[in-house]
């Protein structure tokens, strides 16, 4: 458990660093961002492989999944949505494989400085994830979705809907920043909805392959690529609807904030966090308020890690909110 918390914290901090690197003088430092992305990958790996009781999930295809938590508590283990497209097919493909090693070098989310403007590398990372293995990944995606549904069914209440991403491979490629699972014990009401990612396929009970269609809509202004290939059409699940409704107003607001940001990609990030906040607000007013403050200070780039360290409540907080607070 401690490893998971630690991993979460490290992921939050890493995301903060990547975000801050964009505004650093002299342009994005390729070397440092590469290293940060490697840490991100390691942390995610540890997070996924650290067994938590009762949360092991095996997909219908018999693909064992690393202990996915139902709690969407996990902070974006990959580059958050801000990195471009919603979970790309290529990334998805890796999940059911359940490998400890990412199929691709995780560096993909190193800013893609290339020869282009480093400032926009954040976008580049998203592009990175376009594997072009759409077909295979769609199949894989459905498998993943089904297993998620299975996990969802096991979970209690709304929390269950969000949990499981039976991702084997780290790849740290969760551009949408969807939490992969939470640390909190199943059913912790405060956690789930908050962390529900609009974009990632969210297994809800009986839902068809989860619709990232929510994502494009939510992120519209922020410029996330349209629904990723391989994201099945959104199903309207009972679970999803209320969330969408709830999240839309804040996301609208978020989008406004996002548009003020330097680049749309980071705006996506904020949107995602923002959407999570709405859930937070709904389920846990006290905690929600706290997180909201944290998020609002995000764009001002509060010192990543600093807030994490200062808040003694961190341990009890859903790790997802840790990431938010970090921002």
């Amino acid at each position: 458990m401690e490893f998971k918390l630690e991993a979460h914290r490290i992921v939050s901090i890493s995301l903060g660093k990547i975000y801050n690197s964009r505004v650093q003088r002299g342009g994005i430092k390729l070397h440092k961002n590469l290293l940060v992305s490697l840490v991100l990958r390691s942390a995610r790996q540890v997070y996924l492989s650290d067994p938590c009781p009762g949360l092991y999930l095996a997909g219908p295809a018999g693909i064992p999944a690393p202990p996915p938590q139902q709690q969407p508590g996990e902070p974006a283990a990959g580059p958050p949505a801000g990195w471009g497209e919603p979970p790309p097919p290529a990334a998805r493909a890796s999940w059911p494989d359940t490998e400890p090693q990412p199929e691709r070098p995780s560096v993909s989310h190193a800013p893609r400085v290339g020869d282009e403007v480093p400032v926009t590398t954040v976008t580049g990372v998203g592009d990175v994830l376009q594997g072009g293995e759409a077909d295979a990944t769609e199949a894989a995606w459905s498998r993943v979705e089904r297993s998620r549904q299975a996990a969802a069914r096991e979970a209690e209440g709304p929390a269950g809907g969000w949990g499981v991403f039976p991702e084997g491979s780290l790849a740290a490629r969760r551009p949408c920043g969807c939490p992969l699972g939470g640390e909190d014990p199943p059913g912790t009401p405060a956690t789930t909805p908050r962390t529900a990612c609009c974009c990632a396929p969210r297994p809800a009970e009986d839902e068809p392959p989860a619709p990232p269609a929510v994502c494009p809509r939510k992120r519209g202004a922020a410029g996330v690529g349209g629904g990723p290939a391989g994201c099945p059409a959104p199903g309207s699940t009972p679970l999803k609807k209320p969330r969408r409704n709830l999240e839309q107003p804040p996301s609208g607001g978020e989008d406004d904030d996002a548009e003020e940001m330097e680049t749309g990609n980071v705006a996506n990030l904020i949107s995602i966090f923002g959407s999570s906040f709405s859930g937070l607000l709904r389920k846990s007013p006290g905690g929600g308020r706290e997180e909201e403050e944290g998020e609002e200070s995000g764009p001002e780039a509060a010192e990543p890690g600093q807030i994490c360290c200062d808040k003694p409540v961190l341990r009890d907080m859903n790790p997802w909110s840790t990431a938010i607070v970090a921002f």
Partner: protein
Amino acid sequence: CCCGRELFSWRLHSDIISTVEFNYSGDLLATGDKGGRVVIFQREQENKSRPHSRGEYNVYSTFQSHEPEFDYLKSLEIEEKINKIRWLPQQNAAHFLLSTNDKTIKLWKISERDKRAEGYNLKDEDGRLRDPFRITALRVPILKPMDLMVEASPRRIFANAHTYHINSISVNSDHETYLSADDLRINLWHLEITDRSFNIVDIKPANMEELTEVITAAEFHPHQCNVFVYSSSKGTIRLCDMRSSALCDRHSKFFEEPEDPSSRSFFSEIISSISDVKFSHSGRYMMTRDYLSVKVWDLNMESRPVETHQVHEYLRSKLCSLYENDCIFDKFECCWNGSDSAIMTGSYNNFFRMFDRDTRRDVTLEASRESSKPRASLKPRKVCTGGKRKKDEISVDSLDFNKKILHTAWHPADNVIAVAATNNLYIFQDKIN
């Protein structure tokens, strides 16, 4: 020898020092700082009437090497910070050095002027042109002594060859060419030609998603002008031979130490990234610096280093905090002494470490005003890692991580060292007698 160091001189820079380099004779010491300035110190000649000032380093020349620039095409600000300075071997009365920021390398000529011509025909003493019709007689101008003036002038500007941030420059032993390395590429230049450079290493993958490592440092072999090495963020070193092919993407030798699986952590990759690589003066060894250690490699053995020296192993348990405060990304340099018998590198709390390869002894010293009095010996310091802290020891938690010594240099012949602590430059020498 590592003992008996005393403070020689101390200088306050206006900005954080970002590079320190002795020239080939050791008479000149160049420093570059974050503000793009270069300050050159010159060693005073031995003076019998002032024995205590033997060999003191005083400011010789100061000039602005690089200015902040803006790349309008990429909307990028280019920092003026001097990343590296490398001296050229002296060939005449003037001195030449290369200084580089993230994008542009400049060749500077530093020359002295101590005479001035007087008695011109066509202009007055104050420079005003004379009316030619007023000149009734001609004279030959004569040279008169003047106060020494040291001038620095840019002789070459090598620009637009690097997409990524330049981390190293290295002058070749042929004294005609030099290399410059950024995160993904290494270019070969001729010192006379600024509009062309040859790319000799390119590790940029076709698909940037597949990027797994970057180049962190590169250096030419001190004697073999066809050989150079470059280190990577993965902790590997590649030795390349320019005779084997024009593009040295394939290495001749590959140096890597297998990772110890028991010490694996989130930050294993970061701490294995090599921040500096330096050939020994003999050319037989090279030294690499990663976050926690310095390693000496025999060029004839690629499988593992021949020596590993722990710089601050007590930080291994603090890696997470060091990651949070960004210290884990600090790039420490290392250097050899003139005889290759000792190596030196910096640490935190203004500590720096010296390792004597012959006696296997090491020492930790501190560069600070409080602990250094002129002509008083430096006291060895010790960091306490365990529970009970002895007198004079410092506990790991009391270390000041803002006081870091990233840049050190060793005189090529004498036991004189230059240590840059933020914006302070300390020069220490071995005590005589």
